[in-house]
């Protein structure tokens, strides 16, 4: 491993982290602004121009709070849980490609993804299945019945929805014939996005993504009306900030993955006909990828402020009796269509 290679890899990781963390800050601002628009309010407008610096003020406030750990808590696991959450949320983005062709940097061509691995789709599934540990361990280590209930709910919810998530992805893999995210995006050239080819799979994957990120209408692990705050009831200060960060980082990861798998990733329809230079094309592709991710993020927040929370039995019924059969039917349907087309 030569020095320049390591340097480029580190640079990519640092850029990704910086972009995600800054986006989280602005995402919190937009969450509050969008909720204000939807509820006919103004939203944060005091700190900085149009309230743009509000998230930084919030972060500072959180950092200055006292870190309270319950006396009967398991101190090590209590501290470990938020770290697990945030690292898993950030790691999944490593396989998402953001442009179509390599960039030249320091005299060598650099692929526009941190790790282009053969099993990209499975890597994302593996990380999302590990994501539950942060909430579960946090809920258990707090030694509080509300936290424990939140942790239990999160594990039950994630097990139920991971199945539909994996099954809906199989349709995409069948069409593409590869688990590599780069090839999945290349396969969606023009308007042949997977959302067109896989409408049922898209809907089931989208719903499962909401459940996996614990966003409303599926935020039962932290349902504040029933569980005070769920798994993070006993968390304060920076540990709470990490959980908060992880929730939004998860949302960014889910949006980027949905954009990559179903919305064509960095594909811009008709881009090759414009006759742009390679550099401009790459810039357009990165822009398209970011725009699609941003649209998905807006959708996440739009849904949060439009749809009320599910009841626990409704959540389980939806997961096992609607989503699971629908995802299975999607596989059979895709197989039949592929059989007759080929």
């Amino acid at each position, binding site marked *: *491993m*030569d020095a*320049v*290679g*390591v340097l*480029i*890899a580190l640079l*990519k990781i640092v850029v990704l982290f910086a972009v995600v963390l800054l986006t989280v800050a602005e995402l919190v601002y937009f969450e509050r602004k969008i909720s204000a628009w939807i509820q006919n309010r103004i939203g944060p407008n005091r700190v900085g121009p149009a309230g743009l610096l509000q998230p930084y003020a919030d972060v500072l406030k959180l950092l200055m709070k006292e870190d309270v750990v319950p006396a009967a808590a398991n101190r090590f*696991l209590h501290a470990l849980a938020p770290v697990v959450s945030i690292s898993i949320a950030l790691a999944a983005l490593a396989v998402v490609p953001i442009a179509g062709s*390599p960039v030249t940097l320091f005299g*060598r*061509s*650099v*692929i526009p993804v*941190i*790790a*282009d*691995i*053969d*099993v990209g789709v*499975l*890597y994302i*599934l*593996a990380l999302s*299945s*590990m994501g*539950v*540990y942060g909430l*579960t*361990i946090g*809920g*258990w280590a707090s030694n509080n019945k509300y936290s*424990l209930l939140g*942790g*239990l709910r999160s*594990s*039950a919810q*994630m*097990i139920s929805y*991971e199945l539909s998530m994996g099954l809906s992805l199989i349709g995409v893999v069948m069409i593409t014939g*590869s*688990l590599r995210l780069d090839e999945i995006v290349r396969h969606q050239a023009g308007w042949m996005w997977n959302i067109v080819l896989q409408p049922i799979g898209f809907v089931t994957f989208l719903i499962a993504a909401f459940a996996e990120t614990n966003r409303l209408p599926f935020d039962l692990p932290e349902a504040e009306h029933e569980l005070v705050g769920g798994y993070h009831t006993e968390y304060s200060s920076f540990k709470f900030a990490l959980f908060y960060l992880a929730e939004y980082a998860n949302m960014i990861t889910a949006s980027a993955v949905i954009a990559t798998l179903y919305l064509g990733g960095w594909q811009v329809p008709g881009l090759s006909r414009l006759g742009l230079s390679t550099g401009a094309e790459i810039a357009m592709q990165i822009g398209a990828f970011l725009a699609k991710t941003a649209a998905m993020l807006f959708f996440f927040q739009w849904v949060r402020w439009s749809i009320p929370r599910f009841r626990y039995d409704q959540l389980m019924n939806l997961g096992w009796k609607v989503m699971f059969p629908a995802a299975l039917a999607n596989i059979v349907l895709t197989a039949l269509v592929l059989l007759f087309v080929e």
Partner: protein
Amino acid sequence: MKRKRIAYRPVGDDFSPMLISTSYDMSLFPGHTSSILTGTTRSIIPPARLVTFSTLVFLVSSATAVVTGILVITRSSALHSALFLILNFLALAVLYLSLQAQFIAVIQVIVYAGAIMVLVLFVIMLLNLREENHRCRSFPRRHLAGILLGAGILLIFVQAIIAASVSYPSSLARNAAEIGTSSAIGDLLYRSFVFPFEMASILLLAAIVGAVVLAKKRFP
């Protein structure tokens, strides 16, 4: 028969130049990282440093696997045991990865660390098994039986490993990066071994149906 001793070594050690030039496509193996991470296809890594890096990965992950494995059976709290078992599975996944079997590595994380252990944690938390302070009453006879049994199994394992390392073809090592990909495994499962594979899936289906029937509890 000439006994060709091939000591264990992480497979990636003998790199052919062909492998390096295509490594961009295929692996997550640590030695390949520079080419994966940067996408460069021309960086040829000096083999000596590579060996040390993959050996280091092997040592760290196998030590983690052994230590966490011991901790799993010695902790008194069920939850701690389960958490160490998760770490153990992750260390095993890293070992698979260092053998270039990235498909197996990821499946190991999804199935064992991700699905089964979540269920185990779920049950432990549901039953709320706190530190129950199991009185460790001594059962010398049982201990003796356990030690004997363990020694027997260890003997079988050592024998198997020695036998395997004798007939270990070096061509397998060279193609490890190709064998470990999902397409290669899919090819094997659905072409060469399709009958045993389908038999296993029917068996599992029967087990699922049986579990559902038992769970319904409509027996007189």
